[in-house]
């Protein structure tokens, strides 16, 4: 470094030191403490990711899927499904003149049922992992 550069650098240092720092104002500290208390309050309010009603709906949905996949499929291709083995119920006939509606029963293949179960199983794992990470970040 030449002497000219050295003197320039010394001058820059002197001027910047002279310029000093800026004052952020009298309310600066109070504003920080206010922000901190707001953050603390937010932390204290527990908000579940999935509401209790949501959990119930998911459980019912999964139970239905499991039930359908178990009872509507035979364990062997030539066997009858569990639902088909049940004796027909003899219920009293109602004489109501309703339009004839036919509801198709879903006929899932075992592979499809397994796929659905695995899909929801993995979904639960992901939800659990997210919940855990959310709790640790709080």
């Amino acid at each position, binding site marked *: 470094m030449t002497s000219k550069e050295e003197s*320039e650098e010394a*001058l820059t240092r002197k001027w910047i*030191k*002279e*310029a000093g720092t*800026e004052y952020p104002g009298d309310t600066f500290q109070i504003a920080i*403490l206010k922000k*901190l208390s707001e953050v603390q309050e937010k932390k204290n309010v527990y908000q579940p990711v999935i509401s209790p009603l949501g959990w119930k709906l998911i459980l019912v949905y999964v139970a239905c899927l499991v039930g359908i996949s178990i009872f509507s499929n035979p364990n062997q291709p030539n066997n009858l499904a569990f639902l088909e083995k049940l004796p027909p119920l003899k219920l009293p006939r109602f004489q109501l003149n309703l339009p004839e509606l036919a509801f198709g029963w879903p006929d899932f293949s075992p592979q499809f049922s397994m796929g659905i179960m695995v899909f929801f199983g993995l979904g639960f794992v992901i939800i659990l992992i997210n919940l855990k990470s959310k709790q640790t970040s709080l």
Partner: protein
Amino acid sequence: MRFLEDQHYIKLSQKGDMQAFAMLVQKHQRVVYTLAVRMLKNPEEAQEAAQDTFVKVYQSLSGFEGKSKFTTWMYRIVYNECLSRIRKNKNHFAQLEEMVDTKEEPSDFQDGLELMHREERAEMVKKGIESLPPNEAVVLTLFYLEDQSVKEIATIAGMTESNVKVSLHRGRKHLAIVLQKLFNKELIGLS
């Protein structure tokens, strides 16, 4: 006001002592705010950024192990906070950087500046630093005002040491150009 070592306030703050944290804020608020103003060029936004920096410092204090200097760690937080705000307002800073004409070479004006009153000169230097690009303004402030080493500045700004040296060189040159312009304006009574 006389302050104790940072470590004293940090230990107490880690135990939840808000008064100790308030002291830590009081000790460093001026430098943190100055860095924010010099990067963001807007006092209101700098206030917000500096406050958010201290909130982040408080929240992360439990994880501060003291491997690096507290100030280096804190300046890195304020630097990143300001940088993210700058990225949001990119167009504004693109216009600002045009203010520094790099083609011009400063001539000898230092003697004239030295003859000015200290307060007037300080005001001019403040204006000059605020006209610089954020990166150069913060590097000059950390190096000359806070006496941070090139290595420490590299850690704060996430740059290589050679990049810090380049920023310092450019910052000095640009500051000289801006100061000369401001000095000439002062001479002919424009400002």
